[in-house]
C-alpha cells in the first residue's frame, strides 16, 4: 500500500486517507491558446514509466493538495512537497538523483 507524508501536517498517510489527482506541474493554457495547446494541456500526458510527479489530496486529513515524486515502475517514493512549487524543489531532485543517477529534470527554472 502506498504511504505518503503530507508536507503540510507531517502525517504519514496511507492510500485510503489520500485522493490521487493525476500528473503534476501542468501549465494551464490561457485564452490565447491554440487548439493544439489546449489538447496538450487537457489530454497529452507523459505517463512516465519511472520518475513521475503527481498531485495528491490529504482527503481524510488536513484536506490540502500536495505533490509527490515517485517511481511508477517500482512504487518507490522519492518525497513529497507543497503544491505551491512550480517545479520540484532542489531536495526532491537530489533525492531522485541519489536513487536514479541517470535521470535528468526535463524542465528549466528561470
Amino acid at each position: 500500500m502506498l504511504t505518503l507524508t503530507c508536507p503540510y501536517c507531517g502525517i504519514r498517510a496511507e492510500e485510503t486517507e489520500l485522493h490521487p489527482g493525476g500528473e503534476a506541474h501542468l501549465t494551464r493554457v490561457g485564452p490565447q491558446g491554440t487548439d493544439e495547446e489546449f489538447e496538450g494541456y487537457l489530454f497529452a500526458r507523459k505517463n512516465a514509466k519511472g520518475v513521475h510527479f503527481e498531485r495528491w489530496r490529504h482527503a481524510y486529513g488536513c484536506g490540502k493538495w500536495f505533490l509527490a515524486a515517485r517511481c511508477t515502475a517500482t512504487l518507490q517514493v522519492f518525497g513529497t512537497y507543497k503544491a505551491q512549487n512550480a517545479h520540484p524543489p532542489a531536495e526532491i531532485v537530489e533525492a531522485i538523483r541519489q536513487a536514479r543517477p541517470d535521470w535528468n529534470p526535463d524542465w528549466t527554472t528561470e
Partner: protein
Amino acid sequence: MSDAPRSGRYSVFAIARQALRQHSGWQRAWASPAPRDRYQVVIVGAGGHGLATAYYLGKNFGITDVAIIEKGWLGGGNTGRNTTIIRSNYLQDPSAAIYDKALKLYEGLSQELNYNVMFSPRGLIMLAQTEHEVRGYKRTVYANNLQGVSTEWVDAQRLKELVPIINIDGPRYPVLGGLYQARGGTARHDAVAWGYARACSDMGMHIIQNCEVTGVETEGGQVRAVNTSKGRIGCDKLAMVVAGHSSQLAEMAGFRLPIESVALQALVSEPIKPCMDVVVMANTVHGYLSQSDKGEMVIGGGTDGFNNFTQRGSWQHVEETVRALVETFPMISRLKMLRQWGGIVDMTGDRSPILSTTPVGGIFVNCGWGTGGFKAIPGSGWAMAELVAKGSPGPLAADFGLNRFREGRFIDESVAAGVAH
C-alpha cells in the same frame, strides 16, 4: 524449429489418431522463427488485439508479410490477465457497433479458427442498486434496441430467478433490477490469443517472442524500422498494440497519447460446486463475479487511482471489492481466495479506445481499451486491419481517431464502463 510444420487441423479424428500414437504426433501450434530484416507490416504486442489485427490483415486483405513482436510471451499481458467478460451493451453508437461486431465474431470464432476458445454465452447482468442506475440502464436498453443490440431490463424478482445466490434486499444497496444481455458471457482468454496465434503462424506470419521494441526509426515523418532486442527490423507500416505501454511506444516515435496507465486486479476463489451460471456486475459497489468452468469464483473490481506499471494492485482494492460483493452475495463470505494478480491498463478520458493514424506516416495505434478490451478483440482486430491495410479508418474505426480529443468529440462510456470489466 524455425519454419516448423503447419499445425494441422484439430478434429475428433485427429484426437483418435493421436490417442493411438500415445499423443506423440502433435505439432507445435505456432512456429518461433528468427526475425527477418524487414516485413511489410510490423505489429508490436502479441496480445489479443495485436494477434487479431494480424489475423484479419491476412484473412481480409491478403497481407501476410507480417511480424508480431512481443517482449514477453504471447498473451502474457492483459489478454492473459483479464476476467474474460464479453458483452456489447454500450451506450454510444460507435461503441455498440465495434463491440457487437466483436461479439458476433466471438460467436463463430472457435469454428473460424479451428481452435476451441470456449466461448460461453451464459448471459450477463449489470445490477441497478440506485435510482440513478435504474434510469441509466433503462436508457441503455432503449439505446441498445435502437442499435439492434438486444438487451432487456429485468426487475428484481426475475433477477433473483436468474441468480438464485443473490441477496436482493441488501441493507445498503438493495437490488432494484438489472440490465440483461442474454448473448453476453465469457471465453477462455489464453485460447483466444493461442487460436489467433496459430492461425497467423499457419498463414506464414512471424510471431517473435522475447523481443522487446526499444526504438522507432523514422525518416522525413515516415516510419522506417523498429529497433529491438533482436536487432533492427525494417517495415513499411507499424502498428502499436501494446495496451499499458502505449505511451512508451509513442514516445519512441516522438508523439504523445491521451493515455494513463494504472493497475487493475482480479482474484479467484477456491473451486466450488456450480452455483451461478451468469456473469453479474455490480457497478455501484464496484465488483463483479462469475464462475469459471473449474468452479472458481472469478472476482474483479476497480482500478487503482494512480499511475503504475508494476502489474500488481493495492490490497485496499481487494478488500473493497470483496466487502462490496459479500453484501450482495452473502454465500461467498466464507470462500478462501486462491490467487490475486494485476495488469496495467491503458485509460483514456472518455473510457473509449483509440484506433488511429498518428503524426508519423505509416504508424497506427490501437490502444485505450483500458479495463474492458478482451470482449472487443475480434472486432478491434477487424477494424485495425482495415486501418493498417488502407491507411485510413473504415466505418468501425472512424469515430475512434485521436482527433476526437482535439475536437471535443468524445465517445463517453463512463456509465457503460462504470466498473472495470
